[in-house]
Protein backbone atom coordinates (compact mmCIF):
# COMPACT_ATOMS: atom_id res chain seq x y z
CA UNK A 1 0.00 0.00 0.00
CA UNK A 2 2.84 2.36 0.89
CA UNK A 3 4.53 1.70 -2.49
CA UNK A 4 1.28 2.26 -4.38
CA UNK A 5 1.00 5.80 -2.98
CA UNK A 6 4.64 6.46 -3.80
CA UNK A 7 4.03 5.59 -7.47
CA UNK A 8 0.83 7.58 -7.60
CA UNK A 9 2.58 10.69 -6.37
CA UNK A 10 5.78 10.42 -8.37
CA UNK A 11 4.70 9.27 -11.85
CA UNK A 12 2.65 12.31 -12.89
CA UNK A 13 5.59 14.56 -12.13
CA UNK A 14 7.82 12.71 -14.58
CA UNK A 15 8.70 15.06 -17.44
CA UNK A 16 7.66 13.97 -20.92
CA UNK A 17 8.90 15.34 -24.22
CA UNK A 18 6.28 17.60 -25.71
CA UNK A 19 5.51 17.68 -29.43
CA UNK A 20 2.82 19.27 -31.55
CA UNK A 21 0.57 18.04 -34.33
CA UNK A 22 0.51 20.44 -37.25
CA UNK A 23 -1.57 20.67 -40.39
CA UNK A 24 0.49 21.90 -43.34
CA UNK A 25 0.22 23.00 -46.94
CA UNK A 26 3.23 23.69 -49.09
CA UNK A 27 5.49 22.75 -51.97
CA UNK A 28 7.66 19.62 -51.91
CA UNK A 29 10.99 20.28 -53.59
CA UNK A 30 14.18 18.37 -54.20
CA UNK A 31 17.18 20.19 -52.75
CA UNK A 32 20.70 18.74 -52.82
CA UNK A 33 19.28 15.27 -53.45
CA UNK A 34 16.83 15.48 -50.54
CA UNK A 35 13.12 16.22 -50.34
CA UNK A 36 12.11 19.25 -48.31
CA UNK A 37 8.78 20.97 -47.70
CA UNK A 38 8.52 24.74 -48.19
CA UNK A 39 5.52 26.58 -46.76
CA UNK A 40 4.55 30.10 -47.85
CA UNK A 41 7.36 30.07 -50.38
CA UNK A 42 8.63 33.42 -51.65
CA UNK A 43 7.15 35.33 -48.72
CA UNK A 44 8.72 36.72 -45.59
CA UNK A 45 7.10 33.83 -43.69
CA UNK A 46 8.72 31.11 -45.84
CA UNK A 47 9.81 28.06 -43.83
CA UNK A 48 11.67 24.95 -44.92
CA UNK A 49 11.16 21.59 -43.21
CA UNK A 50 13.48 18.63 -43.33
CA UNK A 51 12.37 15.02 -42.85
CA UNK A 52 13.56 11.85 -41.24
CA UNK A 53 14.75 9.16 -43.68
CA UNK A 54 11.70 7.02 -42.79
CA UNK A 55 9.46 9.67 -44.35
CA UNK A 56 11.43 10.24 -47.57
CA UNK A 57 9.55 7.51 -49.54
CA UNK A 58 6.21 9.13 -48.59
CA UNK A 59 7.34 12.44 -50.08
CA UNK A 60 8.59 11.07 -53.40
CA UNK A 61 5.24 11.27 -55.32
CA UNK A 62 4.85 14.90 -54.32
CA UNK A 63 8.21 16.21 -55.52
CA UNK A 64 7.60 19.37 -57.56
CA UNK A 65 3.97 19.57 -56.45
CA UNK A 66 1.82 21.18 -53.79
CA UNK A 67 1.01 18.92 -50.86
CA UNK A 68 -1.15 19.10 -47.75
CA UNK A 69 -1.28 16.88 -44.70
CA UNK A 70 -0.21 16.59 -41.10
CA UNK A 71 3.11 16.15 -39.34
CA UNK A 72 4.56 16.14 -35.85
CA UNK A 73 7.09 18.77 -34.80
CA UNK A 74 9.10 19.07 -31.60
CA UNK A 75 8.58 22.84 -31.42
CA UNK A 76 5.67 25.09 -30.63
CA UNK A 77 6.89 27.84 -32.94
CA UNK A 78 8.91 26.14 -35.67
CA UNK A 79 11.58 28.07 -37.50
CA UNK A 80 12.95 27.42 -40.97
CA UNK A 81 15.03 24.24 -41.03
CA UNK A 82 13.04 22.46 -38.31
CA UNK A 83 13.17 18.68 -38.66
CA UNK A 84 9.82 16.91 -38.92
CA UNK A 85 9.61 14.05 -36.42
CA UNK A 86 6.93 12.16 -38.27
CA UNK A 87 4.89 12.73 -41.42
CA UNK A 88 1.47 11.30 -40.54
CA UNK A 89 -0.69 12.31 -43.54
CA UNK A 90 0.01 13.62 -47.01
CA UNK A 91 -2.11 14.30 -50.10
CA UNK A 92 -2.07 16.47 -53.19
CA UNK A 93 -3.18 20.05 -52.85
CA UNK A 94 -3.38 23.11 -55.03
CA UNK A 95 -1.74 26.44 -54.15
CA UNK A 96 -3.90 29.13 -52.61
CA UNK A 97 -1.77 32.26 -52.43
CA UNK A 98 -4.21 34.36 -50.40
CA UNK A 99 -4.82 31.86 -47.65
CA UNK A 100 -1.46 31.78 -45.96
CA UNK A 101 -2.93 30.71 -42.66
CA UNK A 102 -3.43 27.19 -44.01
CA UNK A 103 0.34 26.84 -44.53
CA UNK A 104 0.89 25.75 -40.95
CA UNK A 105 -1.86 25.26 -38.37
CA UNK A 106 -1.06 23.95 -34.88
CA UNK A 107 -3.61 21.26 -34.04
CA UNK A 108 -2.80 19.86 -30.60
CA UNK A 109 -0.04 19.02 -28.14
CA UNK A 110 1.04 15.40 -27.91
CA UNK A 111 3.72 13.24 -26.35
CA UNK A 112 6.65 12.97 -28.76
CA UNK A 113 6.68 9.74 -30.79
CA UNK A 114 9.64 7.42 -30.51
CA UNK A 115 11.44 7.26 -33.82
Amino acid at each position, binding site marked *: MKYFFFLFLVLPAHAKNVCFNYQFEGAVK*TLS*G*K*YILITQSDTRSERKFEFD*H*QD*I*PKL*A*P*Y*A*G*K*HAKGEFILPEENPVSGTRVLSLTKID*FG*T*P*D*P*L*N*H*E*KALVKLNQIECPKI
Partner: protein
Amino acid sequence: MINLTILLAIFSFPLFAANHVAFLGGGGEPQGSKTIFDQDVKRFGNFVERMPGANVTVSFNGGHSGTEGKLAENFPASPNTPFTATNFEALVSRYESDIQAGRINSADQLMLYIDTHGAEQSPGGQTTHNIATTGGSIANFDNLAGARSVSLDRLRNLTTLAEARGIRLAIIDVSCHSGASQSLANSKTCVISATGPRHYGFAGSGTFSSNFINRMRPGRNLNDIFHSVRDDSADTDFPMISSPAGKDVQDQIYPLLTRFLYDYERNSPSKLRGDIINSISTNSCEQENESLATLINLLNNVENVTNENFRRLREAVSEYQVLRTTMQNQLRGMITNPVLTESRQFCHGGRCFTYSGKEVIAMDIPAAVAVANQAGVNTPSQAAFYQSWANTLNQLAPWKAQLLANPAVANFPNYFHNYPDLERQSERLARRISKEERRLYREMHEQASASDQRPNPCKDFRL
Protein backbone atom coordinates in the same frame (compact mmCIF):
# COMPACT_ATOMS: atom_id res chain seq x y z
CA MET B 1 -51.04 83.21 -43.45
CA ILE B 2 -48.24 82.05 -45.72
CA ASN B 3 -45.72 83.97 -43.60
CA LEU B 4 -47.06 82.35 -40.44
CA THR B 5 -46.71 78.87 -41.97
CA ILE B 6 -43.13 79.61 -42.97
CA LEU B 7 -42.31 80.91 -39.50
CA LEU B 8 -43.86 77.85 -37.87
CA ALA B 9 -41.89 75.58 -40.19
CA ILE B 10 -38.65 77.37 -39.34
CA PHE B 11 -39.16 77.29 -35.57
CA SER B 12 -40.38 73.70 -35.44
CA PHE B 13 -36.75 72.56 -36.16
CA PRO B 14 -33.64 73.43 -34.24
CA LEU B 15 -31.83 76.29 -35.97
CA PHE B 16 -28.46 74.58 -36.26
CA ALA B 17 -28.76 71.14 -37.83
CA ALA B 18 -25.41 69.37 -37.57
CA ASN B 19 -23.61 66.89 -39.75
CA HIS B 20 -21.69 64.29 -37.77
CA VAL B 21 -19.18 62.27 -39.78
CA ALA B 22 -16.92 59.43 -38.64
CA PHE B 23 -14.16 58.00 -40.84
CA LEU B 24 -13.16 54.56 -39.56
CA GLY B 25 -10.94 51.71 -40.65
CA GLY B 26 -7.53 51.11 -42.20
CA GLY B 27 -6.90 47.90 -40.22
CA GLY B 28 -5.43 44.48 -40.97
CA GLU B 29 -2.57 45.68 -43.16
CA PRO B 30 0.92 44.13 -43.20
CA GLN B 31 3.82 45.96 -41.57
CA GLY B 32 5.27 48.87 -43.52
CA SER B 33 4.73 52.58 -43.80
CA LYS B 34 1.85 52.60 -46.31
CA THR B 35 -1.53 50.87 -46.58
CA ILE B 36 -3.91 50.24 -49.47
CA PHE B 37 -6.23 52.82 -47.90
CA ASP B 38 -3.91 55.82 -48.36
CA GLN B 39 -5.65 57.19 -51.44
CA ASP B 40 -9.06 56.93 -49.72
CA VAL B 41 -7.66 58.96 -46.80
CA LYS B 42 -6.89 61.75 -49.26
CA ARG B 43 -10.27 61.39 -51.00
CA PHE B 44 -12.19 61.45 -47.73
CA GLY B 45 -10.12 64.44 -46.58
CA ASN B 46 -11.22 66.29 -49.73
CA PHE B 47 -14.85 65.38 -48.96
CA VAL B 48 -14.55 66.76 -45.42
CA GLU B 49 -13.11 69.98 -46.86
CA ARG B 50 -16.28 70.32 -48.92
CA MET B 51 -18.39 69.99 -45.74
CA PRO B 52 -17.40 72.98 -43.58
CA GLY B 53 -18.93 72.88 -40.11
CA ALA B 54 -19.26 69.09 -40.01
CA ASN B 55 -18.30 67.41 -36.72
CA VAL B 56 -15.67 65.00 -37.99
CA THR B 57 -14.19 62.10 -36.01
CA VAL B 58 -11.31 60.11 -37.45
CA SER B 59 -10.36 56.72 -36.04
CA PHE B 60 -8.17 55.14 -38.65
CA ASN B 61 -5.22 52.77 -38.96
CA GLY B 62 -2.41 53.09 -36.36
CA GLY B 63 1.11 51.77 -36.83
CA HIS B 64 1.78 52.80 -40.45
CA SER B 65 3.77 56.05 -40.45
CA GLY B 66 2.95 56.97 -44.06
CA THR B 67 -0.80 56.48 -43.58
CA GLU B 68 -0.72 58.37 -40.29
CA GLY B 69 1.13 61.22 -42.03
CA LYS B 70 -1.61 61.37 -44.66
CA LEU B 71 -4.27 61.41 -41.93
CA ALA B 72 -2.58 64.36 -40.22
CA GLU B 73 -2.23 66.16 -43.54
CA ASN B 74 -5.81 65.56 -44.72
CA PHE B 75 -7.68 65.95 -41.42
CA PRO B 76 -5.82 68.88 -39.75
CA ALA B 77 -8.86 69.79 -37.61
CA SER B 78 -9.68 66.23 -36.51
CA PRO B 79 -6.82 64.46 -34.74
CA ASN B 80 -6.77 60.75 -35.51
CA THR B 81 -7.03 57.99 -32.93
CA PRO B 82 -5.85 54.50 -33.94
CA PHE B 83 -8.67 52.22 -35.06
CA THR B 84 -8.59 49.75 -32.17
CA ALA B 85 -11.43 47.76 -30.59
CA THR B 86 -11.27 50.07 -27.55
CA ASN B 87 -11.50 53.24 -29.63
CA PHE B 88 -14.32 51.75 -31.73
CA GLU B 89 -16.27 50.93 -28.58
CA ALA B 90 -15.63 54.43 -27.17
CA LEU B 91 -16.79 56.07 -30.39
CA VAL B 92 -20.02 54.05 -30.66
CA SER B 93 -20.77 54.62 -26.94
CA ARG B 94 -20.18 58.37 -27.38
CA TYR B 95 -22.63 58.58 -30.28
CA GLU B 96 -25.17 56.54 -28.29
CA SER B 97 -24.91 58.84 -25.28
CA ASP B 98 -25.00 61.95 -27.51
CA ILE B 99 -28.28 60.70 -28.99
CA GLN B 100 -29.72 59.79 -25.60
CA ALA B 101 -28.76 63.18 -24.17
CA GLY B 102 -30.18 65.05 -27.19
CA ARG B 103 -26.79 66.41 -28.24
CA ILE B 104 -27.50 64.72 -31.57
CA ASN B 105 -31.17 65.28 -32.37
CA SER B 106 -33.75 64.79 -35.11
CA ALA B 107 -32.49 67.77 -37.10
CA ASP B 108 -29.02 66.20 -37.31
CA GLN B 109 -27.56 63.42 -39.33
CA LEU B 110 -24.73 61.01 -38.62
CA MET B 111 -22.58 59.19 -41.15
CA LEU B 112 -20.20 56.32 -40.35
CA TYR B 113 -17.83 55.64 -43.26
CA ILE B 114 -16.09 52.29 -42.77
CA ASP B 115 -13.07 51.69 -44.99
CA THR B 116 -11.11 48.59 -43.96
CA HIS B 117 -10.90 44.82 -44.56
CA GLY B 118 -14.03 42.78 -43.80
CA ALA B 119 -14.77 39.12 -43.10
CA GLU B 120 -17.63 36.93 -44.24
CA GLN B 121 -20.45 36.75 -41.72
CA SER B 122 -19.58 34.32 -38.92
CA PRO B 123 -21.93 31.40 -38.38
CA GLY B 124 -23.70 31.20 -35.04
CA GLY B 125 -25.93 34.24 -34.92
CA GLN B 126 -23.86 37.16 -36.19
CA THR B 127 -26.11 39.49 -38.19
CA THR B 128 -23.42 41.66 -39.81
CA HIS B 129 -19.71 40.85 -40.08
CA ASN B 130 -16.32 41.56 -38.55
CA ILE B 131 -14.08 44.35 -39.78
CA ALA B 132 -10.31 44.60 -39.27
CA THR B 133 -8.92 46.97 -36.66
CA THR B 134 -5.27 47.92 -36.37
CA GLY B 135 -2.69 45.44 -35.06
CA GLY B 136 -2.12 42.14 -36.80
CA SER B 137 -1.87 41.41 -40.48
CA ILE B 138 -4.48 39.47 -42.44
CA ALA B 139 -3.57 35.94 -43.50
CA ASN B 140 -7.04 34.99 -44.73
CA PHE B 141 -9.29 37.50 -46.47
CA ASP B 142 -12.41 35.39 -45.86
CA ASN B 143 -12.28 35.23 -42.06
CA LEU B 144 -9.61 37.87 -41.24
CA ALA B 145 -7.41 35.28 -39.51
CA GLY B 146 -4.21 36.97 -38.45
CA ALA B 147 -5.90 40.34 -37.92
CA ARG B 148 -7.70 41.90 -34.97
CA SER B 149 -11.31 42.77 -35.60
CA VAL B 150 -14.61 44.04 -34.21
CA SER B 151 -18.16 43.00 -35.08
CA LEU B 152 -20.46 45.56 -36.67
CA ASP B 153 -23.27 43.93 -34.67
CA ARG B 154 -22.16 46.54 -32.13
CA LEU B 155 -23.86 49.21 -34.29
CA ARG B 156 -27.32 47.64 -33.89
CA ASN B 157 -28.15 49.62 -30.75
CA LEU B 158 -27.04 52.86 -32.41
CA THR B 159 -29.39 52.24 -35.35
CA THR B 160 -32.28 51.51 -32.94
CA LEU B 161 -31.60 54.68 -30.95
CA ALA B 162 -31.32 56.79 -34.10
CA GLU B 163 -34.60 55.39 -35.42
CA ALA B 164 -36.40 56.04 -32.12
CA ARG B 165 -35.16 59.66 -32.02
CA GLY B 166 -35.78 60.31 -35.73
CA ILE B 167 -32.09 60.85 -36.54
CA ARG B 168 -30.90 60.16 -40.06
CA LEU B 169 -28.03 57.67 -39.91
CA ALA B 170 -25.87 56.45 -42.78
CA ILE B 171 -23.54 53.46 -42.55
CA ILE B 172 -21.30 53.23 -45.59
CA ASP B 173 -19.29 50.02 -45.39
CA VAL B 174 -16.83 49.59 -48.25
CA SER B 175 -15.01 46.57 -46.79
CA CYS B 176 -14.98 43.07 -48.29
CA HIS B 177 -18.21 41.12 -47.67
CA SER B 178 -19.88 44.40 -46.63
CA GLY B 179 -23.27 43.27 -47.92
CA ALA B 180 -23.50 41.59 -44.51
CA SER B 181 -24.04 45.09 -43.03
CA GLN B 182 -27.30 45.59 -44.94
CA SER B 183 -29.13 44.04 -41.98
CA LEU B 184 -28.44 47.23 -39.99
CA ALA B 185 -30.89 49.21 -42.15
CA ASN B 186 -34.16 50.54 -40.76
CA SER B 187 -36.59 53.37 -41.50
CA LYS B 188 -33.99 56.00 -40.53
CA THR B 189 -30.74 54.15 -41.30
CA CYS B 190 -29.39 53.94 -44.83
CA VAL B 191 -26.75 51.25 -45.38
CA ILE B 192 -24.53 51.24 -48.45
CA SER B 193 -22.15 48.31 -49.06
CA ALA B 194 -19.39 48.16 -51.65
CA THR B 195 -20.06 44.49 -52.33
CA GLY B 196 -22.23 41.48 -51.52
CA PRO B 197 -21.91 39.39 -48.36
CA ARG B 198 -20.10 36.61 -50.24
CA HIS B 199 -17.74 38.71 -52.35
CA TYR B 200 -14.65 40.80 -51.96
CA GLY B 201 -14.66 44.57 -52.39
CA PHE B 202 -11.81 46.43 -54.05
CA ALA B 203 -9.66 49.44 -53.19
CA GLY B 204 -7.85 51.80 -55.55
CA SER B 205 -8.80 54.27 -58.22
CA GLY B 206 -11.72 53.36 -60.45
CA THR B 207 -13.30 51.08 -57.85
CA PHE B 208 -16.76 51.55 -56.35
CA SER B 209 -15.39 52.89 -53.05
CA SER B 210 -13.10 55.52 -54.61
CA ASN B 211 -15.78 56.64 -57.07
CA PHE B 212 -18.31 56.90 -54.24
CA ILE B 213 -16.16 59.24 -52.13
CA ASN B 214 -15.34 61.37 -55.18
CA ARG B 215 -19.05 61.89 -55.86
CA MET B 216 -19.92 62.82 -52.28
CA ARG B 217 -20.78 66.50 -52.73
CA PRO B 218 -22.85 68.85 -50.54
CA GLY B 219 -26.51 68.83 -51.52
CA ARG B 220 -26.51 65.33 -53.06
CA ASN B 221 -28.38 62.47 -51.41
CA LEU B 222 -26.85 59.03 -50.85
CA ASN B 223 -29.40 57.27 -53.04
CA ASP B 224 -28.45 59.35 -56.10
CA ILE B 225 -24.72 59.06 -55.42
CA PHE B 226 -24.97 55.27 -55.14
CA HIS B 227 -26.82 54.86 -58.43
CA SER B 228 -24.55 57.33 -60.22
CA VAL B 229 -21.42 55.35 -59.34
CA ARG B 230 -22.64 51.75 -59.36
CA ASP B 231 -22.18 51.47 -63.13
CA ASP B 232 -18.76 53.10 -63.20
CA SER B 233 -16.73 50.10 -62.10
CA ALA B 234 -16.75 46.52 -63.34
CA ASP B 235 -14.95 44.68 -60.58
CA THR B 236 -16.32 41.32 -59.52
CA ASP B 237 -18.11 42.86 -56.56
CA PHE B 238 -21.81 43.64 -56.07
CA PRO B 239 -22.53 47.09 -54.52
CA MET B 240 -25.71 47.16 -52.42
CA ILE B 241 -28.04 49.82 -50.97
CA SER B 242 -30.75 49.40 -48.35
CA SER B 243 -33.38 51.52 -50.15
CA PRO B 244 -36.64 49.56 -50.65
CA ALA B 245 -36.24 49.38 -54.44
CA GLY B 246 -32.55 48.52 -54.14
CA LYS B 247 -33.34 45.73 -51.71
CA ASP B 248 -36.03 44.33 -54.04
CA VAL B 249 -33.56 44.12 -56.93
CA GLN B 250 -30.72 42.74 -54.83
CA ASP B 251 -32.94 40.05 -53.28
CA GLN B 252 -33.90 38.90 -56.76
CA ILE B 253 -30.57 38.86 -58.55
CA TYR B 254 -27.76 38.51 -56.00
CA PRO B 255 -28.55 34.87 -55.09
CA LEU B 256 -28.74 34.00 -58.81
CA LEU B 257 -25.49 35.76 -59.73
CA THR B 258 -23.38 34.95 -56.66
CA ARG B 259 -21.52 31.98 -58.18
CA PHE B 260 -20.91 33.75 -61.50
CA LEU B 261 -18.98 36.55 -59.80
CA TYR B 262 -16.32 34.23 -58.36
CA ASP B 263 -13.11 34.50 -60.29
CA TYR B 264 -9.58 33.26 -59.88
CA GLU B 265 -7.35 36.28 -60.09
CA ARG B 266 -9.20 39.00 -58.23
CA ASN B 267 -10.79 36.71 -55.65
CA SER B 268 -8.90 34.09 -53.76
CA PRO B 269 -8.83 30.77 -55.64
CA SER B 270 -10.19 29.25 -52.46
CA LYS B 271 -13.54 31.01 -52.88
CA LEU B 272 -14.12 29.60 -56.35
CA ARG B 273 -12.60 26.20 -55.54
CA GLY B 274 -14.46 25.98 -52.24
CA ASP B 275 -17.72 26.72 -54.02
CA ILE B 276 -17.04 24.02 -56.64
CA ILE B 277 -16.07 21.43 -54.00
CA ASN B 278 -19.15 22.37 -51.97
CA SER B 279 -21.39 21.94 -55.02
CA ILE B 280 -19.92 18.45 -55.53
CA SER B 281 -20.22 17.38 -51.92
CA THR B 282 -23.79 18.70 -51.57
CA ASN B 283 -24.76 17.28 -54.95
CA SER B 284 -26.21 20.63 -55.95
CA CYS B 285 -25.34 20.54 -59.65
CA GLU B 286 -29.00 19.96 -60.56
CA GLN B 287 -30.02 22.93 -58.43
CA GLU B 288 -27.44 25.03 -60.28
CA ASN B 289 -29.13 24.23 -63.58
CA GLU B 290 -32.52 25.19 -62.11
CA SER B 291 -31.07 28.43 -60.76
CA LEU B 292 -29.55 29.21 -64.18
CA ALA B 293 -32.96 28.64 -65.79
CA THR B 294 -34.52 31.05 -63.25
CA LEU B 295 -31.90 33.67 -64.12
CA ILE B 296 -32.46 33.27 -67.87
CA ASN B 297 -36.24 33.58 -67.35
CA LEU B 298 -35.72 36.71 -65.29
CA LEU B 299 -33.55 38.24 -68.05
CA ASN B 300 -36.20 37.39 -70.63
CA ASN B 301 -38.84 39.08 -68.51
CA VAL B 302 -36.84 42.23 -67.85
CA GLU B 303 -35.54 42.91 -71.33
CA ASN B 304 -37.31 44.43 -74.24
CA VAL B 305 -37.91 41.51 -76.62
CA THR B 306 -36.87 43.48 -79.67
CA ASN B 307 -33.50 44.76 -78.48
CA GLU B 308 -32.29 41.73 -76.47
CA ASN B 309 -30.51 43.95 -73.94
CA PHE B 310 -29.20 41.06 -71.93
CA ARG B 311 -28.11 38.71 -74.70
CA ARG B 312 -24.45 39.10 -73.67
CA LEU B 313 -25.25 38.42 -70.01
CA ARG B 314 -27.23 35.31 -70.99
CA GLU B 315 -24.33 34.07 -73.09
CA ALA B 316 -21.75 34.81 -70.41
CA VAL B 317 -23.60 33.02 -67.58
CA SER B 318 -24.29 30.02 -69.85
CA GLU B 319 -20.61 29.86 -70.80
CA TYR B 320 -19.59 30.18 -67.15
CA GLN B 321 -21.97 27.35 -66.19
CA VAL B 322 -20.32 25.09 -68.80
CA LEU B 323 -16.94 25.97 -67.26
CA ARG B 324 -18.25 25.20 -63.77
CA THR B 325 -19.55 21.83 -64.98
CA THR B 326 -16.10 21.04 -66.45
CA MET B 327 -14.46 22.00 -63.14
CA GLN B 328 -17.00 19.95 -61.18
CA ASN B 329 -16.49 16.89 -63.40
CA GLN B 330 -12.72 17.12 -63.24
CA LEU B 331 -12.61 17.55 -59.48
CA ARG B 332 -15.22 14.87 -58.89
CA GLY B 333 -13.21 12.41 -61.00
CA MET B 334 -9.99 13.30 -59.19
CA ILE B 335 -11.49 13.14 -55.74
CA THR B 336 -13.44 9.91 -56.00
CA ASN B 337 -12.03 7.70 -58.79
CA PRO B 338 -11.27 4.32 -57.13
CA VAL B 339 -8.43 3.65 -59.58
CA LEU B 340 -6.62 6.63 -58.11
CA THR B 341 -7.49 6.03 -54.47
CA GLU B 342 -6.58 2.32 -54.43
CA SER B 343 -3.46 1.60 -52.34
CA ARG B 344 -0.92 -1.18 -52.89
CA GLN B 345 2.00 -2.35 -50.80
CA PHE B 346 5.43 -3.07 -52.25
CA CYS B 347 8.07 -4.91 -50.19
CA HIS B 348 11.76 -5.71 -50.41
CA GLY B 349 14.29 -6.85 -47.83
CA GLY B 350 11.67 -7.04 -45.10
CA ARG B 351 10.54 -3.42 -45.57
CA CYS B 352 7.23 -2.43 -47.16
CA PHE B 353 6.15 0.84 -48.79
CA THR B 354 2.52 1.74 -49.58
CA TYR B 355 1.46 3.96 -52.46
CA SER B 356 -1.91 5.00 -53.88
CA GLY B 357 -2.72 5.05 -57.60
CA LYS B 358 -2.59 8.84 -57.74
CA GLU B 359 0.79 8.89 -56.00
CA VAL B 360 2.23 6.38 -58.48
CA ILE B 361 0.81 8.11 -61.56
CA ALA B 362 2.17 11.47 -60.35
CA MET B 363 5.59 10.19 -59.27
CA ASP B 364 8.75 10.78 -61.27
CA ILE B 365 10.11 7.30 -60.57
CA PRO B 366 13.65 7.73 -62.02
CA ALA B 367 14.06 10.95 -59.99
CA ALA B 368 12.94 9.13 -56.83
CA VAL B 369 15.40 6.31 -57.54
CA ALA B 370 18.14 8.95 -57.87
CA VAL B 371 17.18 10.40 -54.46
CA ALA B 372 17.27 6.90 -52.94
CA ASN B 373 20.70 6.19 -54.43
CA GLN B 374 22.22 9.56 -53.50
CA ALA B 375 20.80 9.80 -49.98
CA GLY B 376 23.39 10.49 -47.33
CA VAL B 377 23.43 7.54 -44.95
CA ASN B 378 24.77 7.53 -41.42
CA THR B 379 24.15 3.95 -40.40
CA PRO B 380 24.01 0.50 -42.06
CA SER B 381 20.29 0.32 -41.28
CA GLN B 382 19.69 3.59 -43.20
CA ALA B 383 21.66 2.20 -46.14
CA ALA B 384 19.51 -0.95 -46.10
CA PHE B 385 16.37 1.19 -45.88
CA TYR B 386 17.22 3.22 -48.99
CA GLN B 387 18.25 0.08 -50.87
CA SER B 388 14.87 -1.55 -50.13
CA TRP B 389 13.03 1.59 -51.20
CA ALA B 390 15.02 1.90 -54.47
CA ASN B 391 14.14 -1.68 -55.26
CA THR B 392 10.41 -1.20 -54.63
CA LEU B 393 10.41 1.96 -56.75
CA ASN B 394 11.41 -0.18 -59.71
CA GLN B 395 8.40 -2.41 -59.01
CA LEU B 396 6.05 0.58 -59.49
CA ALA B 397 6.75 1.11 -63.19
CA PRO B 398 4.25 -1.49 -64.56
CA TRP B 399 1.43 -0.07 -62.38
CA LYS B 400 2.22 3.45 -63.52
CA ALA B 401 2.15 2.36 -67.20
CA GLN B 402 -1.22 0.69 -66.58
CA LEU B 403 -2.64 3.87 -65.02
CA LEU B 404 -1.36 6.07 -67.83
CA ALA B 405 -3.10 3.77 -70.33
CA ASN B 406 -6.45 4.38 -68.58
CA PRO B 407 -8.09 7.41 -70.24
CA ALA B 408 -10.24 8.11 -67.14
CA VAL B 409 -7.23 8.95 -65.00
CA ALA B 410 -4.34 9.48 -67.44
CA ASN B 411 -4.77 13.24 -67.10
CA PHE B 412 -4.15 13.24 -63.36
CA PRO B 413 -0.46 14.31 -63.58
CA ASN B 414 -1.57 17.34 -65.62
CA TYR B 415 -4.37 18.13 -63.21
CA PHE B 416 -2.06 20.38 -61.22
CA HIS B 417 -1.44 22.47 -64.33
CA ASN B 418 -4.86 22.15 -65.98
CA TYR B 419 -7.15 22.80 -63.07
CA PRO B 420 -5.74 26.24 -62.21
CA ASP B 421 -5.94 27.00 -65.96
CA LEU B 422 -9.66 26.24 -65.83
CA GLU B 423 -9.99 28.48 -62.81
CA ARG B 424 -8.19 31.29 -64.61
CA GLN B 425 -10.77 31.18 -67.40
CA SER B 426 -13.35 32.20 -64.82
CA GLU B 427 -11.70 35.61 -64.44
CA ARG B 428 -12.56 36.76 -67.97
CA LEU B 429 -16.14 35.46 -67.68
CA ALA B 430 -16.78 36.84 -64.19
CA ARG B 431 -15.65 40.30 -65.27
CA ARG B 432 -17.92 40.16 -68.33
CA ILE B 433 -20.82 39.09 -66.13
CA SER B 434 -20.08 41.82 -63.61
CA LYS B 435 -20.11 44.47 -66.34
CA GLU B 436 -23.45 43.22 -67.72
CA GLU B 437 -24.90 42.82 -64.22
CA ARG B 438 -24.55 46.61 -63.75
CA ARG B 439 -26.90 47.19 -66.70
CA LEU B 440 -29.38 44.60 -65.46
CA TYR B 441 -29.40 46.16 -61.97
CA ARG B 442 -29.95 49.63 -63.40
CA GLU B 443 -32.86 48.55 -65.59
CA MET B 444 -34.54 46.54 -62.82
CA HIS B 445 -34.02 49.39 -60.35
CA GLU B 446 -35.55 51.94 -62.71
CA GLN B 447 -38.60 49.70 -63.08
CA ALA B 448 -38.83 49.07 -59.32
CA SER B 449 -38.43 52.69 -58.25
CA ALA B 450 -40.57 54.35 -60.94
CA SER B 451 -43.74 54.45 -58.87
CA ASP B 452 -42.23 53.57 -55.49
CA GLN B 453 -43.73 55.66 -52.68
CA ARG B 454 -42.06 53.82 -49.79
CA PRO B 455 -39.89 55.85 -47.38
CA ASN B 456 -36.27 55.82 -48.43
CA PRO B 457 -33.73 56.83 -45.75
CA CYS B 458 -30.96 56.88 -48.38
CA LYS B 459 -32.81 59.58 -50.31
CA ASP B 460 -33.48 61.47 -47.09
CA PHE B 461 -29.77 61.54 -46.23
CA ARG B 462 -28.55 64.64 -48.02
CA LEU B 463 -24.94 65.79 -47.66
